């Protein structure tokens, strides 16, 4: 019952904020940032699952998750959206770039693409595992992780791949195989890389050696994301768990929501943090102050967030939880937080 009242309180707060925003602003004040629903439809047939922005370029990737839709790669360049052709029907789960001319995308069945500013090159790795995460330290130094959730050691799991500038090579984690899918990877530097996944798995690669930090994080549930917040801060999250590491000390963060956290983005734990997840979860933190916009439009089950240095944010998601249903188009959602943005044109 307590959780229900928290939900009602959040809604009451929303109502209050909505009432305030209707008042005219003083002339000298800039308009408040606002949510824009850029896409909320099943017209693409695919679910957008990850977003990455740098300068004038935004990349959004996704796919049909077994429903027969082609791999989804959307690019916004100088304000204009286009669809980048990607061979195949494998869903792409993540995108990360070093620069607008060096962007990695990974997904089902070991699918890996690299955007060089003009075309997508296929760098796929031979595995039946889904690659859920990718992060790059430099042009010749990138990491991808993945696995086969729920299938233990009977299927490819504990998958860690490293790009050394010429090819993707597997890395073996220490100890016996865990049979766990790794869902995201992030590095604070080339010498400090984190990977998280099923059953609260947390691996930290320090100076070339992987260390198991699961016990220190003590999530007790699947961690779906890891993101860097500053040069020495990283944050892992999933479900009701949010834990930050500052100079290698893990500290749990109490979150004012009962929603299921799936994605996170931040610029610095002392400044902006954005958590997204199921049930339209959109939870900002600035300093020690939380702002819950869950009951504001846009609505949907969000999977990932990207927070730009300006404070603008992209969140993406849709129907990414339910299993495939005979070619039925999946609904997807893309939303932007900041100055008003144009909707996605028909593509």
């Amino acid at each position, binding site marked *: 019952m307590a959780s229900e009242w928290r939900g009602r309180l959040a809604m009451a707060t929303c109502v209050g904020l909505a009432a305030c925003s209707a008042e005219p602003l003083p002339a000298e004040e800039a308009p408040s940032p606002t949510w824009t629903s850029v896409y909320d439809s099943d017209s693409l047939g695919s679910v957008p699952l990850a977003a990455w922005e740098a300068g004038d370029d935004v990349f959004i990737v996704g796919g049909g998750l077994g429903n027969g839709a082609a791999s989804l790669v959307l690019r916004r360049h100088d304000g204009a959206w286009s669809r980048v052709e990607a061979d195949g029907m494998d869903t792409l789960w993540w995108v990360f770039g070093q620069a607008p001319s060096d962007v990695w995308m990974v997904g089902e069945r070991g699918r890996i693409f690299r955007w060089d500013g003009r075309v997508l090159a296929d760098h796929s790795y031979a595995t039946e595992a889904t690659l859920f995460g990718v992060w790059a330290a430099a042009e010749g130094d990138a990491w991808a992780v993945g696995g086969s959730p729920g299938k233990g050691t009977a299927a490819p799991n504990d998958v860690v791949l490293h790009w050394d500038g010429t090819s993707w090579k597997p890395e073996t984690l220490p100890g016996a195989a865990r049979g766990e899918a790794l*869902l995201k990877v992030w590095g604070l530097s080339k010498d400090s890389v984190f990977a998280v996944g099923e059953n609260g798995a947390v691996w930290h690669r320090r100076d070339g050696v992987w260390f198991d930090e699961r016990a220190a994080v003590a999530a007790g*549930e699947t961690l779906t994301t890891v993101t860097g917040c500053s040069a020495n801060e990283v944050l892992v999250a999933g479900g009701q768990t949010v834990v930050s590491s500052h100079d290698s000390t893990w500290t749990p963060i109490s979150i004012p929501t*009962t929603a299921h956290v799936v994605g996170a983005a931040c610029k610095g734990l002392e400044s902006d943090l954005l958590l997204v997840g199921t*049930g339209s979860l959109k939870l900002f933190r600035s300093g020690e102050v939380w702002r819950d916009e869950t*009951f504001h439009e846009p609505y949907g089950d969000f999977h990932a967030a990207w927070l730009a240095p300006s404070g603008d944010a992209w969140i993406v998601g849709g129907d990414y*939880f339910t299993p495939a249903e005979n070619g039925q188009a999946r609904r997807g959602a893309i939303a932007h937080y900041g100055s008003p943005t144009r909707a996605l044109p028909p593509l």
Partner: protein
Amino acid sequence: MGGSGRTALSRRESLVIAASLSTVVLLGAFATGCGSPGVAEVERDLTILNRVSLEPLAPDGDLRYGPSFQGGSWAMPALRVRGVEPIGVLNGEIVDGAGKALGSVSGSPAHLIEEASGTLRADWLGIPIADIAAEPIGSKAPARLHIAFVDETGLRVESQLPVTLVSAESP
């Protein structure tokens, strides 16, 4: 026990409904030129649905559970409600035949879809199945499913149903 249930009303809920009925009476009076207004009864209920067919889940009907795309084991019933607002929170719980909790979700924010008929629908409610041993695909076990929705005004609808949990490759 059917696929839907109606809830006993709290004093607060009764007051809210009374206010709603007053509005109906007033509107009816305007519409009919103050003739016989005819007070419409507010129907409030929650029906648990099969997620794929969106048909009511029959008592002891199959409820699949299995890993989602990013792991974890989940059951995903859908639901249809009447007589409440579309924004609120969902609670769900599955217990085994002995009453032991197998999984639950509490306070999950929800924005229900408005159907053409005026009813509201959630296409799925993910209930993590945490406390059940790994079973072979296709194995079945009796359980009870309870779902409640509380809207932003505090109105509550709920339903519970005996189900057959079926271990599957996906929920």
